[in-house]
């Protein structure tokens, strides 16, 4: 597992750089004092608050204080909720993660069969239909899909609940909404990948053994065409969390997306910083996992 150790070590500089960027953004974003005090506060009041928050220290001193508190798990206090930001974020993180995972799952379930079908029926009506659907799926903004789904399946026909996150049925509409664009992109990718692999000579070898076409596809074509698909899944997962912000707002989903949105509206810096940091950590973890999956999938890839 020396590969794993090395990758984990490589994460440290990325994380440090990330803290610098987040800190710099907040530093530039403005003076928290004026947003914390009422408008009629005296300049003496401002001075006292700035002093107590350590805002009169030089930039680098403030950065190291920020870093030190972060290492001890202190990500600041949300002035809106008057509670530790990390606690607030971690409370809502599972809802967002489940939603994203469900969306990913839906995207995989839709895209893999459709992509393979389109590739096998290349240049036929089926192929054009699948390509057409995936272009539409990619082109529709997800807030619009969400609203339409609510209108038809929750308000008119009332199969699914309009909003909230109490039962499994609550998952269906938001997860589908979030997954559609990804499903569309993955369908096109699976199609392209299968078309490429199907021309490989080892596929001909499999046929020359007298193998059934269905097994040729499942055993030789499918596994080999998965590799680029894994990359997209890995790259898209953090983006899904980004997309979740919009979808959570539409469906009143109690995740970090809505938390972030209200934090931005009220300039609740502690929460914004914490969420950005958590998403970044997440991205790094998913990238590591993608690499590991590669290694399991493709024996040619060695990490030594």
């Amino acid at each position, binding site marked *: 597992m020396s590969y794993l150790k090395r990758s984990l070590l490589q994460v440290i500089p990325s994380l440090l750089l990330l803290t610098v960027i987040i800190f710099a953004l907040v530093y530039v974003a403005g003076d928290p004092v004026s947003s914390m005090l009422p408008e009629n506060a005296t300049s003496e009041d401002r001075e006292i608050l700035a002093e107590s928050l350590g805002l009169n220290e030089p930039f680098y001193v403030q950065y190291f204080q920020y870093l030190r508190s972060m290492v001890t798990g202190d990500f600041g206090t949300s002035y809106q909720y008057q509670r530790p930001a990390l606690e607030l974020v971690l409370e809502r993180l599972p809802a967002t993660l489940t939603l994203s995972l469900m969306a990913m799952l839906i995207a995989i379930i839709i895209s893999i069969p459709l992509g393979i079908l389109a590739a096998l029926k290349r240049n036929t009506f089926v192929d054009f239909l699948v390509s057409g659907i995936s272009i539409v799926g990619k082109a529709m903004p997800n807030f619009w899909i969400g609203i339409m789904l609510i209108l038809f399946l929750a308000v008119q026909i009332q199969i699914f609940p309009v909003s909230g996150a109490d039962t499994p049925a609550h998952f269906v509409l938001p997860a589908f909404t979030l997954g559609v664009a990804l499903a569309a992109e993955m369908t096109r990718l699976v199609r392209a990948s299968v078309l490429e692999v199907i021309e*490989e*000579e080892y596929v001909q070898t*499999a046929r020359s*053994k007298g193998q059934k076409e269905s097994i040729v596809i499942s055993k030789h074509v499918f*596994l080999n065409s998965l590799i680029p698909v894994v990359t997209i899944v890995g790259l898209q997962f953090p983006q899904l969390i980004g997309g979740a912000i919009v979808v959570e707002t539409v469906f009143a989903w109690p995740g970090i997306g809505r938390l972030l949105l209200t934090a931005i509206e009220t300039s609740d810096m502690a929460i914004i910083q914490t969420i950005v940091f958590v998403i970044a950590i997440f991205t790094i973890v998913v990238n590591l996992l993608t690499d590991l999956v590669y290694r399991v999938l493709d024996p040619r890839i060695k990490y030594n």
Partner: protein
Amino acid sequence: MSKNHTGPLLSVNHLVTEFETRGKNNITVVDDISFHVNEGEIVAIVGESGSGKSITSLSIMGLLKNGGHVTGGAILYQGTDLLKLSKKERRQVRGKEMSMIFQEPMSSLNPMLRIKSQIAEAINIHQPAKSKKQVQEKVIDLLKQVEIPDAERVANRFPHQLSGGMRQRVMIAIALACEPKLLIADEPTTALDVTTQAQILALIKDLNKRRGTGVIFITHDLSVVADIADRVVVMYQGKIVEEADVFQLFDHPQHAYTKKLMRAMPTIEKKAGDSHAN
């Protein structure tokens, strides 16, 4: 496939293979060719790139793709016309009665699967009754038959861990897995270096002698032909322009194209300055 069939192992009669194009006219790649292969015989098909020799072999195997179709003639294997078989019956012939090895050993093995499972696949398709252990033993036996040293270790490897020559041996092992009577080798040595080339040729010759496997050997290299073939078919622009016993062909080439091919072969006399050797 009658067991007591007496004629040639394979006869190709007036075979025509065409490819669909976007325009109205199909392209005829193999144009009315006839030849045969006797049991235990090595027949070389010679010709330049695009002469239709690979398409001929894919037509025989039933592996044409990208709009290629056999549109005329017959392919008789032990007296049975393969073109009249159903897809399923054709599949049962492929790999069991006749098998094929390809030009690029680097890309003709699945990079994700271990050698043993790729050989085992060929066995399992046609002999599903074999137990796992029997299949494993057969895999090792096949690897030994194609003279792979340390067969047990190689069986557990992935293709990228083997050299080109070793991979071509594995391909031959796969092709021989069900003891076919006909082996089609489509330029099996073109991608290999000269030493490995000689080893693979010797291996194919040896398997032909020991097991009586008929071989169609496709090549553009006449020196290889001289080394391996009993009989030679010369193809040019989709047609057979000459068919002869290998000695006869080299001594008295009849067709102008064959003569040209001969002249293109490097000889020692040529190097010595005799520019008209043929």
